[in-house]
């Protein structure tokens, strides 16, 4: 057994007649940045949704370390230390940036109905700590201090991305899944984000799996790349080798180019 923080073993997901992911093996190694790439509809996000528990695989297993999380609920998986962002940012639009990040702390907090009503000292402390932590995370991702208490709907696209990453980091993950973090960014912003991903990995001792379309980002920061096409894994390995793989070129550019 390797000590992969998260691993998919022969996972398959079938929607009706469509096999979105077909027997894919994927392993994220400790401390690495790995990328999943592939054309639109290749099954990348479906794979992410299985890793985080939003979808239950039709067959195959998902392991978190030694633990089988195939049938675990998303909130349980988050509590076990897996956090994610979404391709089309999914913040809570009417909440402030700070409140959004405090939601990320939810699984590390305990107050229930009675705790919330009667507010014993430990609840106040927990709440204060969550608020401070939210501020720290937002500072870490580079959100300007005067935007902390603005509703996220009123933030710019780039800032929303930052808040979403801060929200994921607030849950104390050891595995971070980023679904197209540079979508909609210009080249300069993308390069900035790529640098930031490495910084997060190093400072937080995280293992990061990302779905990415921007090849510059993928080649620049990934230790390993996995390529999906039509739900199947067609190549895997270090970025330079994958780029030369005729099957990958074919998947992206069509048969004639290969």
């Amino acid at each position, binding site marked *: 057994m390797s000590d992969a923080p998260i691993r998919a073993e022969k996972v398959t997901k079938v929607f009706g007649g469509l096999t979105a992911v077909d027997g894919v093996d994927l392993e994220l190694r400790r401390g690495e940045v790995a990328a999943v790439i592939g054309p639109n509809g290749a099954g990348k996000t479906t794979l992410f949704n299985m890793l985080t528990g939003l979808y239950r695989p039709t067959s195959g297993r998902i392991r978190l370390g030694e633990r089988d999380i195939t049938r675990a609920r998303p*909130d349980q998986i*988050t509590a076990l230390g897996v956090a994610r962002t979404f391709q089309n940012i999914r913040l809570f639009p009417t909440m402030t940036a700070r409140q959004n990040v405090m939601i990320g702390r939810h699984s590390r907090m305990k107050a229930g109905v009675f705790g919330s009503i009667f507010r014993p000292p430990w609840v106040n402390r927990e709440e204060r700590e969550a608020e401070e932590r939210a501020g720290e995370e937002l500072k870490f991702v580079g959100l300007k201090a005067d935007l902390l208490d603005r509703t996220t*709907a009123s933030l710019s696209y780039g800032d929303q991305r930052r808040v979403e990453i801060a929200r994921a980091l607030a849950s104390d993950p050891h595995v971070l899944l980023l679904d197209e973090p540079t979508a909609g960014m210009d080249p300069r912003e993308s390069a900035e984000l790529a640098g930031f991903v490495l910084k997060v990995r190093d400072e937080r001792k995280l293992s990061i799996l990302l779905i990415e379309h921007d090849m510059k980002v993928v080649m620049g920061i990934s230790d390993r790349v996995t390529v999906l096409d039509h739900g199947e894994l067609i190549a895997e390995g270090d970025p330079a080798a994958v780029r030369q793989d005729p099957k990958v070129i074919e998947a992206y550019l069509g048969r004639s180019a290969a």
Partner: protein
Amino acid sequence: MSAALGKIKGFDQRFLVIAAILFAILLPFFFDRGSSFMDDAVLALAYVVMALGLNVIVGFAGLLDLGYVAFFAIGAYTMGWLGSTFYSQANGGEGVHLLVTGAAANLPGIHVNFLLVLVGAIILTTIAGVIIGLPTLRLRGDYIAIVTLAFGEIIGQVAANGDQVRIGGIWDKTLGALPLIPDLGSEATLTRGKLGISPVDKIDLPFVDPFTSLDIRSWYFVALGLVLIVLFVNVRLRDSRLGRAWVALREDEVAAISMGIPTVKTKLMAYGTGAALGGMSGAFLGSYLNTVNASQFEFIFSIFILAMVILGGLGSVWGVVIGAILLSFVNSWLIPDVLNGLPGQLGLDFDLTQVSFAIFGFILVIVMILRPEGLIPERSRKQEMHGIGTGDRAGAGSDVELGEAR
């Protein structure tokens, strides 16, 4: 600059709240102890408690509940069962008396102190809230409404036909055989249908004379006390980990569950809490109205309470208070006492009370057109209603279809 403004605003709000509470405490001293205004005021306060309870479910957690009357019924029946001569054969006809004084202490039937009844009502309605919550967990929006509506109807039917359900035999063989739990006698039924359990024990508090129906002032203060408790619960829950989680679930369930919010547990907490508050009010009303009667528990009552919440502003604690007081007074004073003769004066052959729910519907339509977020909107609802921020989500390709998420 904006921080300073916020401070002034916060101060203003605190001042307003204190002023409103003082006003509510002093108000009864300007009216006769038995006046009809006091009667209307007590009803209004009881409805405020219910509306604030429903606000937890519909306003905070965004779960459209059309069967809230069920919790009124269960709370009221708890009062009826534990505070009347209804089970007159209980304990071999000698009755059961627990911490009661006054007339009730010598009557047959089960008579339990109001505070204990309140606790019992809270426990029973919380359980009922969780039971109604369970089947709706996989549902969304309109479908939740349908299931809760059905649940309200079921409870209403059980109340109406409960006079045919003899629980005495089974009860005495099982629970009645246990120590401390009285037997009920073989004639005992579940409810008394449309005849109603009546009279119901008056509220009996320690250090205070037992209440009477002539002195409404003391009822008023108990109702006000319940309102203050429920207000406190609402405000505390709103500004807590749980309150945040409810907003998150309401706005984006997939994101919420992915951020570690357990949907099942969090939603059930909303149902349970909201139900418990409705049960408190139900027990109070059972005693105050002096009858627990199946005709009180009809669908229209759920809509009445929901209308208060919507009128005031979904999720807005102070808005809901205002909404409940307004609609309650429209119902118990404006329509029957002030405007009732209006159709007659116009040469029409009906009383306004006959169409009171049409009037409520009309009020709601007007509110929806002019001020869809309610009279005193909650901040985030206001944004939702005016399309700020949520528009993007509806249009964008979704990562996850909700039917698939679990």
